[in-house]
């Protein structure tokens, strides 16, 4: 069996696996449609859970495309030329997943168009739908046109430039609006911090490039398409700085909360840092972050490919926990009536979530397969 054959076979195995996961998620969703959201671990007190946590995380991954788009288009950083399209397609898939996560969280999905039929500009959710769909269209358009030009060995059309430029602040806006969904609620002191949007962006700019970096490594091993040493090293740098800023922001938050010692703020943090099971996850996440930062800074380890691949995985897990259990769930504990409700996702809830990720990765595989074929053909 030659190399292309083997390549084709592993691709089919991968696609079949994704398909199975999508189908299992979809059948669980059908059960959820019939039984209601009671089949999830969410309840009256912890009324948002795994779905909204994943939504929040994925909006961050989507926004992080700006970390390759900005250096390439504004600072003319040529080394990112090979991976900018990959970053944009990652953003497209992440937005699709994020939107699906909100959709499966709805109690009455058949009425979803009410958001458009009864537009409510005072609601941040309205703005989120607006910025997310805009971002989806922008990235699809830019990536598509760039690839098309590349295929025909032409320069990218001139009219595309304004769309590229708009997509940069637009990327910041999607995660800012997502942060505002939370940080504007007086009811939840844990979320009520002006630092939330900056924190979201910092953690996004660490986890997004980490994901892109891993994808580049996988692509290199499976297709032979090499993003180039320079691009990879730059991604590592961006990820490292963003991670350190994120750690700093977290410590800053801790200072204000614990030094001011206002009970309604400290209580959430106390539960997050001390009460199992939440504390177990959070400390795991914190330690992963700190270790990654250390190995990515230390001169003896930071150039090692295995180190930054390991750190990328650690950062993705760490930030996924930080934005999930550590952020969405803890915000509901204690409840407004001072109770300590508990939350853990159910099996169907987890399978639906995995199904959405599988669907996102199916799109991503198709996009990447397509892009890389063109890139390899054109050298």
């Amino acid at each position, binding site marked *: 069996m030659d190399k292309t054959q083997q390549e084709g076979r592993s691709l089919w195995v991968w696609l079949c696996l994704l398909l199975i996961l999508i189908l299992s998620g979809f059948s669980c969703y059908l059960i959820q449609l019939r039984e209601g959201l009671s089949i999830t671990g969410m309840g009256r007190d912890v009324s948002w859970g795994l779905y909204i946590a994943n939504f929040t995380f994925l909006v961050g991954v989507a926004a992080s495309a700006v970390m390759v788009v900005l250096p390439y288009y504004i600072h003319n950083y040529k080394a990112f030329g090979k991976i900018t399209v990959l970053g944009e397609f990652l953003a497209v898939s992440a937005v699709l997943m994020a939107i699906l996560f909100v959709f499966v969280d709805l109690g009455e999905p058949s009425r979803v168009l*009410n958001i458009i039929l009864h537009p409510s500009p005072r609601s941040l959710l309205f703005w989120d739908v607006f910025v997310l769909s805009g971002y989806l269209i922008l990235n699809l358009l830019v990536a598509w046109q760039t690839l098309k030009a590349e295929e025909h060995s032409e320069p990218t059309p001139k009219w595309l430039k304004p769309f590229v430029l708009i997509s940069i602040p637009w990327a910041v806006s999607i995660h800012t609006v997502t942060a505002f969904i939370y940080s504007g609620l007086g009811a939840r002191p844990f979320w009520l911090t002006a630092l939330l949007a900056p924190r979201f962006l910092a953690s996004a700019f660490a986890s997004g490039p980490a994901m892109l970096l891993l994808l580049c490594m996988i692509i290199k091993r499976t297709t032979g398409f090499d993003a180039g040493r320079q691009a990879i090293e730059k991604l590592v740098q961006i990820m490292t700085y963003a991670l350190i800023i994120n750690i700093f922001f977290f410590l800053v938050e801790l200072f204000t909360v614990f030094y001011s010692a206002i009970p309604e703020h400290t209580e959430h943090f106390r539960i997050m840092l001390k009460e199992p099971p939440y504390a177990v996850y959070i400390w795991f996440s914190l330690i992963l972050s700190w270790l990654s930062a250390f190995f990515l800074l230390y001169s003896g380890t930071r150039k090692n490919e295995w180190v930054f691949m390991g750190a990328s995985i650690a950062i993705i897990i760490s930030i996924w926990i930080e934005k999930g259990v550590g952020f969405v769930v803890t915000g509901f504990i204690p409840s407004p*009536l001072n109770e300590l409700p508990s939350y853990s996702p159910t099996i169907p809830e987890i399978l639906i979530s995995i199904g959405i990720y599988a669907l996102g990765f199916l799109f991503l595989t198709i996009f990447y397969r397509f892009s890389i074929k063109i890139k390899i053909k054109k050298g």
Partner: protein
Amino acid sequence: MDRRKFIKITGITLAGVTLGMGDSLFGKVYASPQNVKRWAMVIDIGVCLKNPECRDCVDACVLTHNIPDFNNRKDEVKWIWKARYGDVFHDSALELTKERLPSIPIPVLCNHCENPPCVKVCPTKATWKREDGIVMMDYHRCIGCRYCMAACPYGARSFNWREPRPYIKKINPDYPTRTKGVVEKCSLCEERIALNKLPACVEACKHKGMALVDTSAGRLDSYPSIKDRHIIARKTHLGTKPRVYYVL
């Protein structure tokens, strides 16, 4: 002065007169619904302190509004329920006062806030504030995103995690049942108020510990029965201006 303004002022004066005449605030309607500008609820905690076992208000609400009982805390739906005073007012903990008070169950319900955060966050205008202050829900427009539940500082909102109908003990045909997937909450019995009736909880309280009042008609402490007593509300520091008042 035009005709409308004249009628309005006369109405308010009439309501004011009714106020002055009453010697007790509780258990009466103090204005005709047509003239009301701002409804509020007053709850006498002293009454609850004397009757900690009483659940009349809760039971009446459950029967009137077809509230299901799943026998399961996670899926629970509640419009008015009893919670410990110490938990309801945990932000203003009174450690050294009235020994028994913190453990006493008192009724909690939607505060029908002057600045309701739930209304602001709703992406479909499925919840809104009426001119008379009642915060309403449209069960047919709600998409079940539960943003309002995250935004409510009082935990007053419930979601239908499952189909409620099979779990309603006795269906009241005069009030609609809800479906799974939508949010619901206390409506201050707007359907009863429209018929010049008291809210079900107020009517059911045999100890006369609850009252529905029109706050636009005068100051709360002008009611003789609570004149010299301390009046508090939940989490006033958030600026939501809750309209359920507790009298200590």
